[in-house]
């Protein structure tokens, strides 16, 4: 193994890159025993060694480019996916991003031990400079892992939030000219905005004269929720549709009264069926038991 010569100017980053490539196998072997790799690749040790080699290669790439402190260095791109998967596996096992990055930091020491062994004088200037370069590089790796795991979490949250908004506001056609929105969960400002928009759209596209807002699935009706309901009802009225609020449970009714909210201008019914019956009756539609099969009850 060629050892850095004393006296000549040595570029620590370039030297580090060469060192990582030369010692690829040994470093990967040692990393396979470190907590990060050992706990992610539980099936076989070979798998952990292979993954370790990929990370060593990436670090060597970054060192060659000289951008030791650059999170966006091209070398990291090749392992971002792998690191993301490893971090996700650790996160699923209940580790926080901080704990995961601590495990990344543990990777420095095995490599540093090999690095020191390369120098005749491990306390010398060159050894010190190269060790510093390695420390910088592993510090950057730590940040890359942190960034990967945090952004993965943020993506997931943003995606789920959108899914939730989409999922919880279906507008259902109950009858010709009658639509219903079953509201479920928390009715905050963002949700009620979506509800109002999709309801008003449905009133136009389905030529609805009656719209039923069912709040059976809304656990808490406070003054803000009541205000949102009243605004939705008022907007629907402007579109020429009459709104009926259904699914008001006894506990909610008492709470609304004590809170002092006046829902007197809104037509309310206890259940969705009652609301539908009201809307049908208003349109002069009579549902009556007819002959057993086939014929239209109308």
């Amino acid at each position: 193994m060629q050892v850095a010569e004393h006296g000549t100017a040595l570029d620590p980053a370039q030297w580090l890159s060469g060192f990582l490539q030369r010692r690829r196998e040994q470093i990967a072997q040692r990393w396979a025993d470190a907590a990060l790799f050992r706990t992610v690749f539980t099936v076989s040790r070979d798998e952990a060694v292979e993954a370790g080699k990929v990370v060593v290669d990436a670090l060597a790439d970054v060192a060659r480019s000289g951008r030791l402190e650059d999170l966006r260095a091209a070398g990291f791109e090749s392992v971002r996916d792998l690191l993301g998967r490893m971090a996700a596996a650790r996160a699923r096992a209940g580790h926080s991003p901080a704990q995961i990055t601590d495990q990344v930091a543990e990777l420095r020491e095995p490599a540093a031990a090999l690095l020191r062994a390369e120098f005749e004088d491990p306390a010398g200037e060159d050894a010190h400079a190269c060790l510093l370069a390695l420390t910088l590089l592993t510090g950057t790796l730590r940040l890359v892992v942190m960034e990967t795991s945090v952004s993965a979490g943020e993506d997931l949250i943003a995606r789920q939030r959108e899914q939730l908004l989409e999922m919880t506001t279906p507008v259902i056609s109950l009858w010709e000219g009658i639509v219903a929105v079953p509201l479920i969960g928390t009715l905050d400002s963002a949700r009620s905005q979506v509800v109002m928009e999709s309801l008003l759209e449905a009133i136009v596209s389905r030529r609805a004269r009656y719209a039923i807002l069912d709040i059976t699935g809304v656990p808490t009706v406070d003054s803000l929720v009541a205000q949102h309901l009243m605004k939705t009802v008022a907007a629907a009225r402007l579109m020429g549709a009459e709104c009926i609020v259904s699914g008001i449970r006894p506990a909610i009714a008492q709470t609304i009264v004590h809170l002092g909210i006046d829902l007197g201008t809104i037509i309310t019914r206890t259940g969705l069926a009652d609301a539908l019956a009201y809307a049908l009756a208003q349109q002069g539609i009579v549902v009556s038991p007819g002959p057993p099969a086939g014929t239209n009850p109308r």
Partner: protein
Amino acid sequence: MHAPLVSSTRLSLGSDADLARARQQVRQAAADLGFSLVQLTKLVTAASELARNTLVHGGGGHLEITPLTDGARRGLRLAFVDAGPGIRDVDLAMTDGYTTGSGLGMGLSGTKRLVQELTVDSRPGQGTTVTVTDWLRDLPSPRAGAP
């Protein structure tokens, strides 16, 4: 009744998501103590109003949920603390229909009717603490409360 009495829980109130969490925690705490559905719904609604006040008017703060025991009586104390601008005139703020924002003006006055005790401690510029105390009502029979 079967759940052990835990010491107070502290929740931060800094976003809409925190409000949802605060409601859930209050609901859980009240259910654990055996509150009736009506009383529980009222308390959760009160908590929702006050937590939103803390967020909107107080600029965020925290909620402290404390289970209480007084002999055979059991209750729940909720303290909503913020370090916001404070309430200039508490009596006026407690009036039905009075609002500084765009709400219905029912928050504070209406909330007082939902719970047994409500105290407002506010100094302009120093922040506001609203404390709500609700005791478990109507024991079904004299000894039913014992675990």
